[in-house]
């Protein structure tokens, strides 16, 4: 490097170069002022290393060290966490507001109103049991009850189906995000291997990681080569460098056939702690299924109580032993974890034991010796059939009005689930078609004016027939609606809170990494002036050189 004018020319050149780079960086910032996930960049410069010529120190201008992202990595992980939680509560809130819409009794159009109407029409029949027109009204009110319960059931099931398809969709999205992150890993790795900083690629990757975090709880580990490893749901490495492992969904026969999320062949559903997936699974298992179960219990209880009374009563045509609603059926299944090959079949509920039905869930449990069984009421935690020897094909000792038969080879600790409510809301229906058969009377001798049986039915309105004799039909239902309200309200509050938290964090990130056009404008002026000054130096040196060249 020469000393003198040519050296100065070099210094001016570095200055021009630096100013140009600075202006380019400013332009890049301005261009990306509104790009999501963009982190503002800054050119780092230092004065060039001085060159020692003999005992003379010669300045070598300015050196562009690089362009760095203004970024707080701790804030990044905080935002990721908040995004995960927002994903969970936001999804839950949306799902629960749908659930709430199904059970909105506040506006007087829910099941509660229909049930009240049904009881009202029973009262009318009680006043004039011989009136065919009042009986017709009663039957049509019973029909409305059927329609409402069926429609609640199908709306719940539709919503659950919808949630299931969302779960499957989220899993597909997660897999696609994982693939894109892996491919960005590849690019970042390549670029940074050459010593550059992959600023924009990292921005893109961060944006994808944030998107991923909204779906499932993740832990992101940055490797020394600039690639990231993504652990989903507390430890399943869905992205490792440039390779990915897919998540998948699989129907779980022990959970109503609903999807489990699997990593390889491992069920990781229970380890999903946040993100949209958590919100969806939580809404499905804790809220929708719970509402469905309670609706089933209510429908089964209405069916049971009315049929028991109606069956014993007498219609206007003197007929008896008629059912008002479709009879309840028993649902039973062998658990998927059973090692034995035995199958379970439900028998018809005998008329004589109908009144003993409890609406609880039961398990037939094979003992450790593999030859005995017990029956446990899992709702109440009580044993209803004590240890009894198992015999293939022989009906299990009747418990609480239920009869089932297990056939085949059982193994130790096999479990069979039994209940009478599972599809009660779906199957709920009025089985009586002839209004004259509605059993208002308790004996044929008191026809047609007897209302004794209807009065007993009316008494059901205030009888505590549910929840261990602590709830009436309507209080049971209102507690269902109320608990949906509580869940929805809590999800709403959490959603709002998470939104605020994320807003704050984003604002904070923005204040560090965001592009301020004012700042950029000032920088632009600054760099423009610097450029002008450097150019001026160049022209001065040029003039000086011309002067020297023209010296004669």
């Amino acid at each position, binding site marked *: 490097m020469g000393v003198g004018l040519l050296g100065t020319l070099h210094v001016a050149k570095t200055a021009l170069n630096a100013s140009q780079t600075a202006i380019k960086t400013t332009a890049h910032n301005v261009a990306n002022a509104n790009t999501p996930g963009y982190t503002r960049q800054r050119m780092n410069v230092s004065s060039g290393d001085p060159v020692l010529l003999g005992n003379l120190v010669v300045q070598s201008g300015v050196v562009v060290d690089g362009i760095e992202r203004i970024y707080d990595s701790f804030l990044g992980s905080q935002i990721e966490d908040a995004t995960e939680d927002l994903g969970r509560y936001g999804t839950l809130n949306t799902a629960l507001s749908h659930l709430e819409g199904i059970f909105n009794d*506040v506006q007087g159009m829910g099941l509660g109103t229909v049930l009240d*109407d049904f009881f*009202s029409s029973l009262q009318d029949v009680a006043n004039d049991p011989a009136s065919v027109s009042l009986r017709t009204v009663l039957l049509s009110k019973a029909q409305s009850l059927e329609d409402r319960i069926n429609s609640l059931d199908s709306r719940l099931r539709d919503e659950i189906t919808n949630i299931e398809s969302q779960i499957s969709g989220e899993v597909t999205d997660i897999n696609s995000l994982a693939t894109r992150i892996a491919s960005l890993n590849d690019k970042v790795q390549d670029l940074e291997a050459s010593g550059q900083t992959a600023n924009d690629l990292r921005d893109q990757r961060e944006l994808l990681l944030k998107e991923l975090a909204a779906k499932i709880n993740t832990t992101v580990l940055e490797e020394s080569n600039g690639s990231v490893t993504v652990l989903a749901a507390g430890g399943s490495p869905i992205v490792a460098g440039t390779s990915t492992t897919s998540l998948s969904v699989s129907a779980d026969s022990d959970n109503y056939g609903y999807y489990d999320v699997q990593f390889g062949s491992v069920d990781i559903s229970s380890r999903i702690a946040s993100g949209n997936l958590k919100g969806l699974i939580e809404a499905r298992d804790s809220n929708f299924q719970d509402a469905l179960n309670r609706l089933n219990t209510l429908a089964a209880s209405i069916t049971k109580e009315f049929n028991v009374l109606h069956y014993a009563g007498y219609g206007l045509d003197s007929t008896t032993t008629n059912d008002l609603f479709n009879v309840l059926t028993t649902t039973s299944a062998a658990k998927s974890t059973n090692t034995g090959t035995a199958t379970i079949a439900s028998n018809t509920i005998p008329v004589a034991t109908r009144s003993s039905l409890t609406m609880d869930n039961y398990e037939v449990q094979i003992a450790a010796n593999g030859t005995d069984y017990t029956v446990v009421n899992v709702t109440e935690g009580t044993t209803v059939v004590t240890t009894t020897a198992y015999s293939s094909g022989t009906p299990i000792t009747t418990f609480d009005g239920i009869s089932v038969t297990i056939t085949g080879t059982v193994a130790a600790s096999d479990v069979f689930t039994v209940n009478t409510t599972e599809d009660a809301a779906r199957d709920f229906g009025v089985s009586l078609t002839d209004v004259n058969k509605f059993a208002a009377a308790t004996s044929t001798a008191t026809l047609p004016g007897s209302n004794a049986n209807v009065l007993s039915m*009316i008494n059901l309105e205030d009888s505590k027939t549910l929840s261990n004799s602590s709830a009436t039909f309507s209080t049971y239902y209102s507690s269902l609606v109320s608990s949906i309200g509580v869940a929805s309200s809590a999800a709403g509050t959490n959603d709002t809170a998470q939104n605020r938290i994320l807003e704050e964090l984003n604002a904070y990130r923005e*204040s560090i990494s965001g592009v301020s*056009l004012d700042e950029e404008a000032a920088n632009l002026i600054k760099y423009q002036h610097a450029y002008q000054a450097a150019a001026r130096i160049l022209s001065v040196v040029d003039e000086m050189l011309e002067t020297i060249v023209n010296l004669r």
Partner: protein
Amino acid sequence: MRVTNSMMFDMLTKDILRANEKLLGTYEEISSGKKINRPSDAPAKIPSIMVYNKILSGIEQYRRNIQFSRGELNTAEGALNGVTNSYSRLRELMLSSSTDTADDDSRTVASYEVNEIFNQLLSIGNTKVGDKYIFSGYLTTTQAFTSAGVYQGDTNELVVNIGADSTIKANVTGDDAFTYSDSTQLLSSVLSDPVGTGTFTFTVGSNNPVTVDITASNDEPKEVRDTINAPMTQFYASTANIGEGTLTLQVGNATPQELVVTSSNNTPTLLAAAINALNMGIEASLATDTVTTQERILFRPTITPGETITIDVSLDTDENDLDTGGLSGLLHTPQKSNLTENAIGVRATVINDTAGSRLLFRPTTEGTSYTIATNDDDLADTDTSGLSQLYHASSAATNLSSTMNVFTIVDHLYNSLQTNDRDGIDVSIALLDGASDQLLNIVAEVGGRQNKINLQEEWTEGFSVEATTLLSEMEDADMIEVSTALAKQQVTLQALQLATSKVFELNIFNLI
């Protein structure tokens, strides 16, 4: 702090969105009029709101039930008022017919009106509203009374809920309204004529049981009645010597006959035989006190039933007619008071209605309890013939009923008027008084029920207002508050929009 353009943009957008959201919430409150529009708005209040909604819908139903039962009871009350009026008219007719001035003709005329009243009562008893016979109990499609006045309904009452824990009986059964029961008054079923022979044993109050023979000579219903109602002497030991002297016996205004009582015929058995041997229209029979085995003598007019019997002691051999020795034990000449009417304590009446004759037993002292046993000569005490029509000795099943049907009474009255039977008319008065009392009780009870309905209605209305108010407090929006909030929120939103537009105008690139 570094403030960037997108921070400002984000913040302003979110603020505007939030302001809009609030405004939407307020709009919703205004349009629905409720501050709770979905369960999550106030989960804790949902059970109460649903309970109050249920209560209000229940109240709506109770109102209908109240109206229904009021209608039913008003109809019944109207019908019963008709019955009361009929009773009053019957009573007038009976009283005028039971006077001495009434004669055969006037009683026959009265009987025609009684017949009309019978039909009128029958039509009231068979009152039909729509398809329902209102007095038939549960058997609403069965006519309550046959044309003979036999009740065909049942005794069930239509219970209607008029409040959460309040029920009312919305009907009156014909059984309640048109029959009445009195445990001391026993009515037989329709008797055959002759009834049959055997013995009656009456136990009245704490008295010793008295047995009366019914033989072929006195076994028609009216004769049975007269035997039971016949005057009677004091007790005598069966072996006692009654004393000696002369008895003067007279039936009505017939010529008196004398009977000399000597030591050869002065036991109750022999005396009765001697009186019967006179064959003068007086029959003497023995009534055995089954505990002391003492016997009493019943005197019965045979030729003219119901005629007065006079017995004088013209000469008591102990010559002291004021003592109770000798024939004076039977009768004191001056007082003539030892012959007691209805001495058994039970009075029998023959009730004639369309179906035939029945015997009605009533205690001579009102309210006295008594039992009747029979020993039937046909020895088949499980059948329903002979005296067993009244009572089965062996099966201990009584054929006597303590229940009296109004139609039987009116029919009996009609027959008594037609046959000019003064005694029958008098009995009718007593019986109808009983029926009348019973009816008054029923009418009063119906009035009580109507009162209860009115009270319940008032309470229901009050509660309805209260529940509506509470529900409104819980779920209704305060319109003043909400519209103030709306105005405030509108101002906020406008200010925000204005501020946003100003802020967005700021751009340094406009200046350089």
